[in-house]
């Protein structure tokens, strides 16, 4: 054990998420530290997005506690939250007529004055995130001219420019081919290591999450397992994820096999 205590960015205890009349997932427990990449996996409709939306305070939690940097989520004002937590959602942006630079600049809104004037600090943060996501050449392109992979990089750059200690991403690799999926995952890993931010994302790419993430959370309704990918494999957590007669998990290779 290391003697230096790791900085806990996000701590979730006994959390239940869902809507007033229907609980979707409960007994969710996990901790995320500074500089960690955490993947949230689980089958369709199990509550991955609901959990993410609850963490982002888009919808209220049902019970349990969520602490951000040691402070309960509900104590945050919307303005404080905007400088602590940023999001990349699955919904498409409203105006695709924006240029890449204009879109990333919006990430600085929590810090600018009443009319949105950029300071030197804002401008340097924007160019930092442009650089980190290799978007320099695209910065004057319009969003409707970009490919899905490029647009996703721009959305991540915007979240990065918001300069929050936690970034949440909802299925950041949907609609992307294998190469671009890997590209986005590698970028997230690089951001977490370089900027010491805590990055949480939901994904269906369980095999990639096993290879790339520091820790992962497997949502399974009420029995949610959290830990390092190796721990989850040891616990045989993936074995019961899908019906055994169609898909089985191979612990040696860390991959799923289709049963013939």
């Amino acid at each position, binding site marked *: 054990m290391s003697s230096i205590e790791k900085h806990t960015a996000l701590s979730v205890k006994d959390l239940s998420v869902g809507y007033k009349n229907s609980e979707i997932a409960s007994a969710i427990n996990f901790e995320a530290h500074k500089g960690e990449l955490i993947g949230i996996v689980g089958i369709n409709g199990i509550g991955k997005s609901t959990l993410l939306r609850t963490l982002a305070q888009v919808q209220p939690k049902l019970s349990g506690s969520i602490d951000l940097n040691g402070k309960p989520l509900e104590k945050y004002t919307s303005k404080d939250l905007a400088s602590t937590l940023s999001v990349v959602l699955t919904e498409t942006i*409203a*105006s695709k007529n924006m*240029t890449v630079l204009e879109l990333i600049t919006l990430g600085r809104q929590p810090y600018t004055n009443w009319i949105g004037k950029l300071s030197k600090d804002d401008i340097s943060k924007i160019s930092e995130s442009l650089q980190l996501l290799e978007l320099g050449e695209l910065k004057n392109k319009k969003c409707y001219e970009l490919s899905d992979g490029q647009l996703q990089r721009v959305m991540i750059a915007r979240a990065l420019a918001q300069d929050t200690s936690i970034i949440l991403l909802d299925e950041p690799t949907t609609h992307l081919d294998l190469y671009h999926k890997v590209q986005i995952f590698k970028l997230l890993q690089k951001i977490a290591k370089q900027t010491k931010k805590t990055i949480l994302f939901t994904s269906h790419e369980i095999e990639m999450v096993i290879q790339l993430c520091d820790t992962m959370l497997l949502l399974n309704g009420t029995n949610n397992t959290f830990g390092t990918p190796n721990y989850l494999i040891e616990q045989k957590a993936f074995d019961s994820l899908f019906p055994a007669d169609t898909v089985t998990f191979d612990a040696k290779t860390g991959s799923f096999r289709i049963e013939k």
Partner: protein
Amino acid sequence: MLTVLVNISLGSVEIPFLDTLNAIFDGTTSNTSWDYIIWDYRIPKAFTAILVGAGLALSGLLMQTLFRNPLAGPFVLGISSGASLGAAILIMGASLFSGFSAFQLLNNVSLAIAASIGSFAVLLLVMSVAAKVKDTMALLIIGLMFGSITAAVVSVLSYFTTSEKLQQFIYWSFGSLGNLSWSQLGLLSLIVCIGIILSVFAIKGLNGLLLGENYAKSLGVNLKKLRYLVIIATGLLAGSITAFAGPIAFIGLAVPHLTRQIFDTTDHKILVPAVLIYGAIIMLLCDIVAQLPNSANVLPINAVTSIIGAPVVIWLLVRKKRMLF
């Protein structure tokens, strides 16, 4: 500036351009009736055109961003239909209820007041419903539905009224820039100024809304406050303008799109002042066309803006193949 001068120098009565300049800068011309025409008719009319154009264009921009819908205009919240209802009740309803014979003495002020009351009544109804729905698309549809209801009431009133009253109502619905006195103009410019100031405070939130509501929220934008700010600003701008000048179509819809073509930005810090200027210029140009220079006829301004506005929107769509905002 040039548009203003050209606008003032043209009209049913021919006044040489140089004399117009003299009248404006020295206060007099060689002809006293020209003085009268310029100071009491043409200059107020030019001012009205500036206020109407700027105000309608700005409220169009506000609505398009709030609803994230390129087809939204200042009238989607039922503002224009509310004003029509107010005007219709005053003009045509008075003959139905004989007790209101006092209203037989119609003048522009009472018409403006009735139209304002009408537009704000509809706006308040829409806003009270708006508090209950979270979705802005639903709000848009509710606005349109209220518009249909008021339009239906207006047609019922038109059916039962006399032909003279109907004609009077139709004249109002043509729109007119030339009916405002200096004191009415003062009131209109005060309201338009308040509307502009409110809009300036909405600029940052509107930029955030370009990403969508959830993103805007995650950036710390207070959506509820922003929505009320924008709706009140639009109500003041479009409501007061419709009340004084009648319903004027297409300026609110077309000018923001034209401005986006020219400035090629989505940043409201640039768009807000730009639509104010372009709205004013385009309204002055429409008014010049409506005057039919060197002829005694004046076309209804509402028809001119539609004749110019509709092809502009079609041209934009054909050229860009899509309507982005």
